[in-house]
Every structure is written in structure tokens, then in C-alpha cells.
């Protein structure tokens, strides 16, 4: 892959890297037909961000530059620590850099990033990468009952009222009011912390649709990167969400680039802290696409972040190790995945000890190994598609899923305050079909960045599906 970015777009690219750096420690580079995708996920797998730069963004964008043989373009992962310094000082970049060329060289196993600066200076950075499967979260935004669209400035103003160190905030919507308040989990701090609540009228939003009254709690820190990006480009941000426990997606769409941040939200229904409203019913959660039923397939399609599954997550997302839990429903799909019932696992969760600190990510090769840990990860929030192309059965499943209610990630009870330390808080991520149709989507529903990781999927998806991403 080789691409060249000109002029002010270099700064935008740098800003995107900054925003992604707030999420995770690694940057996934995924050159696709429809553009270059930069992605990041955080270690707890509760936040995901993707910036997709379409070929229009680049002065030159070539998946298979001359010397490389046609084939699947390399997808790789870079350490954020090595990428961020290149774009650290955006003001300098704006002043000095005329052009930036990024290319992935498989012969040398490097990503080469060249900055052509003023006065004839050329800076070349060779970054080593780790080959990796593409990271992606699928989030069918058109199926979210609640949609808000706001100017970046509004959101920036709102967020300014909360201290910079504020970790999490709660967004509560009803048809007449939108309320944001800060959220503290630890009981001990409750007496000492200052609570801030901000209440807005729906009129302030460019688009306001509330299908179901809900309040969601998500991590603000991870979102700030996207918000500052949006503010610098004065773009409106769309927020898609559902009830608590389901993920929330913040997306923005500027012609040559689209950005999405998907954050897991706290499942408050089971935890019921005093400040929350009465817990609502937890409905059955359908297992996501691609997750085979537990007993039949030990390995399944459970790659998580290229094998960097955290034991803490594994502890939290306990899945039945053996056969299916008795009395479980099955998703009406070709794979008949079991319906995940959080209550069943609440007991287990309460018995869990404090999870150990996350280990360093294992090398890529171990990803595919079928281990009991992987089985446990069935219930985890994060998914990666399999390395081999989707089988026909799975492709059919995708098509089936269109007609079905979107599956939400298995929700784990967020309770057990005494057991789960704040860092191991339960989150849920949403998985949906790999593609979805947006025939009559709400005006602000942005296309999901759901895209298969390899070209076969792309073509499979293109069959008969509207890819609004290509607008």
C-alpha cells in the first residue's frame, strides 16, 4: 500500500492519530479498497475508534503499488508510541510539511512514513509493524432507537463543564430533556466529589430522536479525542445509542473521511447504584453473528484484538465452559447461538476474584490457538473476523441477520462493586451483522464502518447489499 497526503490534510491525519491515541496503545492500519482505515481499541476492549480516509483524501492512494504483487494488502498494527511522535506537534506539521507519504513495505517489514518539508528537508521514519488481522467492530447504527446529532461546538461546550479528569459521564435522554451528568462509581468517593449535571433542551440538537428513554454511562476520556477532532473541523457528531448496556457510537462524516468511536456503556440494570433510576428489564441478548454455539465449536470465530485477550476480561465475561446452559434460548439463525442471559452469569461474576493485571499481548501466532481462555472469550465483547474467508454458512448467516433484531453483545452485570475493581468494570459491546442495509435510515444514521477484513468479504458484502459507505 502506498499513499500520499498533501498539505492541510496531513494535519487532519495527525489529528486523527491523536484522537486514536487517546483510545488505545496500538494503531491498526487497514488499507481497503474504499480507503485507509486507522483503528484503535483500548485494552479493556470497551472502546473502539476508526478513522476511515477515502481515496479522495489522498493525493495518491494505491493498494498495490507497482512493485508489490497483487494480493491482499497487508494489514498491520503499529505501536501508538511509535506513530504518535511523528504527528505530535501539529502546529509544526502545518507550517513545515508539504506532503506526507506512507507506504507499507512487506519486503522490509516496515511502514515507511516520509515527510517532505520546507527547505527541501525530507524526514523518513521507518516503523516496524506487526501483521495482524484487521480490527473492527460492527455496530448497526440504523437499529439504534436513539439518535442525536449535534454540532461539535455544542458537545465541546457541554464537555467543558466537566473536569478534565472526569472519567465517565452519564447521558440520559427523554423526549423533553437531555441530561448529562458525571458518574462516580466508588462508594467511598461519593461524599467528597462534586457532582455536575447539565440539562439541555432537545432543540439544541440538529437532530433528535428518542425511541426509548434511556441513560447510558460511558467513558468520556476516550471520547475527547474525537470531540476535539470534530471541533477542529467544525463537524457535526452523530450519537447512536440504545438502552444502558448497549454500546454507543459517536460518528462524524466529512466527505473524504469518516470517523467512528464506539464505546461500551455501563450496564446499570443489574447494578442499580442509588443515583440511578429503577433498573429496567434486561431482555435476552442475542449472540452475535459469527459466534457459533458454545458447545459445538471450541474455537469459533473468537479472535479478540489479535489475541490480546485480557485475563480480566476473560474473568468478567464468563461463558459456559461446557455445554450450553440449560434452558437457554437459541438465536434463530443458522448457527443457533445461545441467547446470553446475564442473570445466569451474575452469580459467577460475584464469585470472581480480583482480576490480575493485563499481560502484554501475546504474539500474533498464538492468536489462533484454541485454548479454554478463548472459549471464555465467546462471551467477551470484542470480535474479530476469522482469518480464513467466511464460509458460506457464515455468509448466509449475515444475510439472515438482516431480518433479525440486532444482536447486542452479551451483557454482563455491572454490579458486584465489591468484587470488580473500577478498571475491570463490565462493559458491553455491540456486535451486529457484518453489514446492514440502510434503506430508510434516519437522516443522521451514518453507515457503519462494518467491513470485512479481507477482500472476499468485501465482495461478499457487495453482493446485493447497499454499502452506504461508498457514498
Amino acid at each position, binding site marked *: 500500500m502506498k499513499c500520499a497526503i498533501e498539505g492541510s490534510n496531513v494535519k487532519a491525519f495527525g489529528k486523527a492519530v491523536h484522537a486514536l491515541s487517546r483510545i488505545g496503545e496500538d494503531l491498526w492500519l487497514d488499507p481497503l479498497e474504499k480507503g485507509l482505515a486507522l483503528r484503535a481499541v483500548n485494552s479493556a476492549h470497551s472502546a473502539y475508534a476508526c478513522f476511515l480516509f477515502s481515496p479522495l483524501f489522498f493525493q495518491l492512494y494505491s493498494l498495490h503499488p507497482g512493485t508489490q504483487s497483487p494480493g491482499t494488502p497487508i494489514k498491520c498494527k503499529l505501536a501508538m508510541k511509535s506513530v504518535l511522535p511523528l504527528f505530535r506537534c501539529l502546529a509544526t506539521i502545518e507550517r513545515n510539511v508539504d506532503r506526507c507519504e506512507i507506504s507499507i513495505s512487506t519486503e522490509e517489514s516496515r511502514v515507511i512514513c516520509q515527510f517532505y518539508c520546507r527547505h527541501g528537508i525530507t524526514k523518513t521514519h521507518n516503523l516496524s509493524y506487526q501483521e495482524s488481522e484487521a480490527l473492527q467492530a460492527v455496530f448497526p447504527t440504523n437499529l439504534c432507537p436513539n439518535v442525536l446529532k449535534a454540532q461539535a461546538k455544542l458537545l465541546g461546550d457541554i464537555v467543558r*463543564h466537566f*473536569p478534565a479528569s472526569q472519567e465517565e459521564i452519564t447521558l440520559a435522554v427523554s423526549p423533553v430533556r437531555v441530561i448529562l451528568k458525571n458518574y462516580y462509581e466508588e462508594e467511598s468517593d461519593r*461524599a467528597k466529589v*462534586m*457532582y455536575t449535571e*447539565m440539562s439541555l433542551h432537545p*432543540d439544541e440538537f440538529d437532530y433528535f430522536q428518542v425511541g426509548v428513554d434511556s441513560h447510558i454511562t460511558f467513558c468520556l476520556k476516550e471520547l475527547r479525542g474525537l470531540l476535539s477532532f470534530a471541533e477542529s473541523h467544525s463537524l457535526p457528531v452523530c450519537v447512536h445509542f440504545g438502552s444502558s448496556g448497549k454500546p454507543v457510537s459517536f460518528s462524524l462524516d466529512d466527505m473524504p473521511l469518516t470517523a467512528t468511536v464506539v464505546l461500551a456503556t455501563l450496564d446499570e440494570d443489574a447494578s442499580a447504584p442509588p443515583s440511578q433510576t429503577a433498573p429496567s428489564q434486561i431482555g435476552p441478548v442475542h449472540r452475535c453473528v459469527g459466534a457459533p454455539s458454545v458447545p459445538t465449536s471450541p474455537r469459533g470465530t473468537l479472535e479478540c484484538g489479535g489475541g490480546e485477550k485480557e485475563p480480566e476480561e476473560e474473568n468478567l465475561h464468563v461463558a459456559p465452559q461446557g455445554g450450553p446452559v440449560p434452558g437457554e434460548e437459541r438465536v434463530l439463525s443458522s448457527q443457533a447461538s445461545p441467547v446470553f442471559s446475564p442473570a445466569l452469569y451474575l452469580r459467577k461474576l460475584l464469585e470472581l476474584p480480583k482480576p490480575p493485571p493485563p499481560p502484554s499481548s501475546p504474539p500474533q501466532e498464538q492468536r489462533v490457538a484454541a485454548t479454554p481462555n478463548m472459549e471464555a472469550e465467546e462471551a467477551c465483547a470484542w470480535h474479530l473476523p476469522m482469518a480464513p474467508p467466511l464460509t458460506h454458512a457464515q455468509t448466509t448467516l449475515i444475510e439472515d441477520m438482516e431480518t433479525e433484531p440486532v444482536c447486542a453483545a452479551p451483557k454482563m452485570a455491572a454490579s458486584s462493586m465489591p468484587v470488580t475493581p473500577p478498571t475491570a468494570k463490565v462493559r458491553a459491546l455491540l456486535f451486529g451483522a457484518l453489514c446492514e442495509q440502510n434503506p430508510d435510515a434516519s437522516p443522521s444514521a451514518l453507515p457503519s464502518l462494518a467491513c470485512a477484513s479481507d477482500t472476499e468479504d468485501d465482495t461478499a458484502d457487495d453482493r446485493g447489499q447497499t454499502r452506504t459507505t461508498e457514498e
Partner: protein
Amino acid sequence: MKFRSKMIDVGCLNPFTRVVNTIAKLNKTCVLRLTPDNLYFVLSGKVSNGGVSMWCELLQVNFFDEYQIEGVSPDANEICLELAPENISRALKTAQNAKSVKIKLTKKHCPCLTLAAELPSLSSVSRVVTHDIPVDVIPRRMWHDFKEPSMPDFDVSVYLPHLKLMKNIVDRMKNLSNYLVIEANLSGEMNLKIETDLVAVTTHFKDLGNPPWDIVHKRIVHLILLHEDVSLQYFIPAVA
């Protein structure tokens, strides 16, 4: 115990914010005393132990348009709260261009001072930002700690020179040493001196008037700042 107040004139908000910001820089916690006529911010580091103490008095009419207070009891119509000035400072910072600010005492998960600011917004309905600042109510038996300090007998007092000038000088001296020697006499002269092993720097001020009341004492430096709405008294115990 009830307290409700409302500030409509945004012009008053600014000086109030500045006072609170100043106090926030001085200490992590302070005591807010509310009486029907005044607000007092009191920092009560014990002077004998070498702590800095401060007393700041604000006339409530100059800031608030509505002010209602019902104290602990009819004969002690006051409320004493302990809080972190930083919280108020932060809350006020976000309310800078508010249409109105309401401050009241509430009880949520714990006693709180609730600051509700109505902000201008794009729509017809304005935004409301509410900050709940946790406070501790100070029981009556401890109130004597926070009485207005009496003026002790002073030896010398001088009017300080222009504050900006002093700030510049003191800032520079701060980098060199932790201790500052202040000398003043009744002829209107004052010296600010620092001495370290390597260097001694002295700044001499002349022709400072001597006010009829005393400012500098042998053992305590008492700085009084008088502004139109606010009077702030600051005690710094001397080290030697």
C-alpha cells in the same frame, strides 16, 4: 437551615469568581460562613502552629440579587460550612457567561451547596448546569474558631506599594529562596529581603504612607486588602 441566593447580574459574578479563585489557590479547604448580611471565607490555619490564616468578608448585597438565609437557630442566624474552594472555583468557571446563578444549600447524598447556572443556549429553553458541591456543616460549638480576628497590637504598619510591582518582585524572589524578610518602619520605608548562601537581594520601598492602623507586627504579618466590595485579611506568621 436554609440558604437560597440568586445572582442575576453577571457583572458581579466576575469579582466573586476571582475571590474564590484566590482562595482556592491558598488552601484546599476553607470555611464559608453565611450570615444575613455577609459571606465570609475563613481559612483557619492555626497561627500559633505556623499556619497561614485568612479572613475574607463579602457584603452579600453587592453580589446577590436574592438572598435568603435561615440559620441554625433564630438567635444564631448563621451557617458555617466547610468546603473545598476549588470546587466552587470550578463550578463558577463554567458559569462565566450565565444568565443567572443560583446558589443554595441542599441535601443530596450529603449536604451540598448547589450551584445552578442558567446558560444561554441556541434554543429557547436555556441550558441548566448544576453543580453539587459537597460540604460539611460545622457545628455551633466550633464556631468560635472562625470569628473575625481581632486586630492585635501592631508595631508598624505601612501601606504596601503598588501590588503589581510587589508581585513581580516577590515572584522573582520566590525562585531564589523560600523565606522572605520584611522590614518596615514608621517612616514609610519597607524592605523585602531574601538571603541565601550565595546571594542576598533587598528591595527598598520608600515613601510608603503609614496608615493610622497597624499592619505589621513583630510576629505576624497581617495583610489587609480593601476593595470596594470585599475585604480580605491575610495573616502570615513569621518564622523568626
